[in-house]
């Protein structure tokens, strides 16, 4: 066995990043993911950015990102013949992944309960904005709306509360739903190994994000306080000191924690190595009370220190000294990161006309399994004939 998903057939009918990233988890680890697209192509083919800036269903980078290693089959589910082929595909499938709401499925003549009744071993993974039941189950969403209603958005933004909460970027509401869709599918796959039966997994993006707010819910469950958003650091019941430090050419994240003696000494030694520790080397700063009483002064000195540093150098030197400090990498910095390069994290994927394009590699490493090389996302209907022919065998 080369990968955990070798031999697994996944049928994907998805029109948002939640459904497409879920399918990608299977495809990247060796599953045969057949992406069913309508004749005009999946919505992501019409979503930018586009390679070369030209809107073209074969050049959508959103499509490329989420659909590598899948096969594309065009089926018009409003046509009887194509619908029969779709049912044939499901007969051959282990998992059916869909981000279409039951209401949207009904519009194209599909009812989830009818799909599973003749296929007791099929695992259906459904992702919807608010789940299939409950008073808001028919409400529409977007990544922003999903993050807002779930409580996650409320934790993120700036110290200045005249500015609204700011959405952490990158479709993370959809991605959080995808993570739980993948986990639900795995639980159902393991259950099926024991019982032979599949199941329907009803993932709610709203609920998935609501359990992904880290401290906000425990702060309400226990001391019954609400956390307040702060610039680029944890939302907390009270205001804390800034943790984002400007450097000569960028930013680092570093939470100044005074309570532990060793990190404090490490920090002072670092500042002192450049002659910038000022009075922090005085003996009275060995006492926690004195440090706490002079927190704003310490914060000022640390700000002055970082503003004189190159961000990369500060990141590496801080880490080498044992401090948990992180550089705020821009996406274009990542491909030059020596650690990621040594781990061969980015892998080149051949795209017609664009050569080897670096894609992030699989973020799971197993000693016993080697994921297959990542393939470029398929052209629209690239595998229609091939897959339909397989079904006749």
């Amino acid at each position, binding site marked *: 066995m080369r990968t955990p998903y070798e031999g697994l057939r996944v049928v994907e009918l998805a029109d948002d990043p939640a459904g497409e990233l879920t399918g990608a988890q299977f495809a990247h680890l060796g599953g045969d993911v057949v992406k069913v697209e309508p004749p005009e192509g999946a919505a992501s083919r019409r979503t930018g*950015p586009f390679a070369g800036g030209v809107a073209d269903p074969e050049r959508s980078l959103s499509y490329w990102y989420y659909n590598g290693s899948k096969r594309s089959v065009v089926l018009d589910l409003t046509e009887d013949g194509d619908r029969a082929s779709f049912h044939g595909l499901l007969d051959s499938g282990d998992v059916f992944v869909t981000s279409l709401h039951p209401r949207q499925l009904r519009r194209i003549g599909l009812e989830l309960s009818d799909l599973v009744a003749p296929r007791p071993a099929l695992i259906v993974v459904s992702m919807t904005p608010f789940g299939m*039941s409950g008073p808001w189950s028919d409400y529409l969403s977007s990544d922003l709306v999903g993050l807002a209603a779930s409580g996650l958005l409320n934790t993120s933004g700036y110290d200045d509360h005249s500015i*609204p909460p*700011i959405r952490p970027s990158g479709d993370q509401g959809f991605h959080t739903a995808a993570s739980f869709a993948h986990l639900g599918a795995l639980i159902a796959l393991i259950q099926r190994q024991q019982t032979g039966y599949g199941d329907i997994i009803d993932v709610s993006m709203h609920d998935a994000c609501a359990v*992904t*707010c880290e401290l906000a819910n425990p702060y309400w469950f226990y*001391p019954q306080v609400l956390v307040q958003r702060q*610039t680029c650091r944890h939302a907390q019941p009270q205001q804390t000191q800034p943790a984002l430090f400007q450097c000569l050419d960028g930013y680092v994240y570093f939470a100044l924690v005074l309570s532990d003696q060793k990190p404090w000494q490490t920090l002072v030694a670092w500042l002192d190595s450049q002659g910038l520790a000022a009075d922090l080397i005085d003996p009275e700063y060995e006492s926690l009370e004195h440090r706490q009483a002079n927190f704003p002064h310490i914060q000022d000195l640390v700000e002055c220190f970082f503003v004189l540093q190159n961000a990369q150098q500060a990141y590496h030197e801080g880490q080498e000294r*044992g401090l948990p400090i992180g550089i705020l990498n821009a996406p274009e910095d990542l491909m030059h990161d020596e650690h990621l390069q040594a781990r061969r994290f980015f892998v080149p994927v051949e795209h017609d006309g664009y050569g080897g394009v670096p894609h992030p590699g699989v973020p799971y490493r197993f000693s*016993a399994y080697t994921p297959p090389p990542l393939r470029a996302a398929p052209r629209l209907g690239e595998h229609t004939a091939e897959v339909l022919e397989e079904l006749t065998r």
Partner: protein
Amino acid sequence: MTMTSTDARGAPWSREPRPRQGPLTDVRVADFCWMGVGSLATRFLADFGAQVIKIEDRTRLDLPRRLPIYKGEPARAYGEEVPNPDPNKGGLFNNYNRNKLGVTINMRTERGRELAEELIRASNVVTENFAPGVMERWGLTEQRVRSLRPDVIYARMSGYGHSGPHQHYRSYGPVVQAVSGLSFVSGLPGREPSGWGLSYMDNQAAYYNSAALLMAVFARNMTGEGTDIDVSAVDAGIELLGPLLLDVAVNQRSTRTESFPTGNRLEHPQAAPHGVYPCSGDDRWVAISVFDDDEWRALVASMGNPAWAGEPMFATQADRFEHQDELDRHIGAWTSTRDRHEVMHRLQGAGVRAGAVQDARDLTETDPQIGAHGTFFELDHPVIGPALFEGVPFRMAGLEPDNWRSAPLLGEDNDYVFKTILGMDDDELAELTAAGVI
């Protein structure tokens, strides 16, 4: 959500370990995890029936046991620990460690390390998320663990992975978010990044680690073979950055510009309005997203067809995208006198994507989805009392999580694990306790 004298199945409440239910009952985890990522990763397995044995050190308490998130006490910030905290009072620990067994082993003693090895022999999964090198210092290399248990799944969870020049770097959620690019891409243009108000990557890295463990269990059920697992949170964070990475790789897009990031506005597709607007009340907001002409017309009708909406600058989706500053002023003026939930329901009723910016109190007390789904549920705890937990956010027709117990007290299951699983007698147990080994 009220009963505390019986468990979810109606049986009399008991903290005694009992046979578990779910697809993972054949899985026993020698769980060295601590902090957020590791504890959350193994919690998902425990929810579905795995016997997760959390191994703790009495002299180096898990941070969530120490963090001052206490029921019935005034709120303190994350870092403000009280001196000599009661290790059984921590709310965050309770939240992260439900459904697990808890034992204590002092790994700095030779007998302690022997005991851990016995436990690994009796388990079929080993998990850890220490700084790299800690398990090796205890002799628990991949080779050693596999020699103790040939079919073991040995999951190593870390910030940077177990290879590469930065593998020894220290990290937690915000550092991972910074290094993977997730913080830089979030914020208003022309300002410092607003990043994240939470350790998103503690949660997401935990989900990726749970998935890696389950993939390995799924495969082992077919082949009988185990595997070592190396999941790096930074790697996962980069995968989560999304298509922007390809914009950079293919189009040589630079993100270090005055117009990036774009705050609450989307670059792709060209949605407008797409923002968070003020509502009545202090710091109250509603999110609205409009992707096409139908949704725009529905929004305009919901606002009572104001004259400004008919201006040519708002005629098409492209026009609206171009004139978002003006558009946002108009929308904000309309929302600012209204209740955030009222706006949400009115717009959703007309087919417009809208959501009140909710907080933890809304989710707990009034959110009808969380309520109808039972996503937050209650379990009793001997020191804390009844408390709510963040449950599994999906439902299955034929299976539900087996929520049998809140988090273990420190060393609560030493008797059960060392006697029933490892076969020790009372004398040996007393000796180990007296010697400070457990």
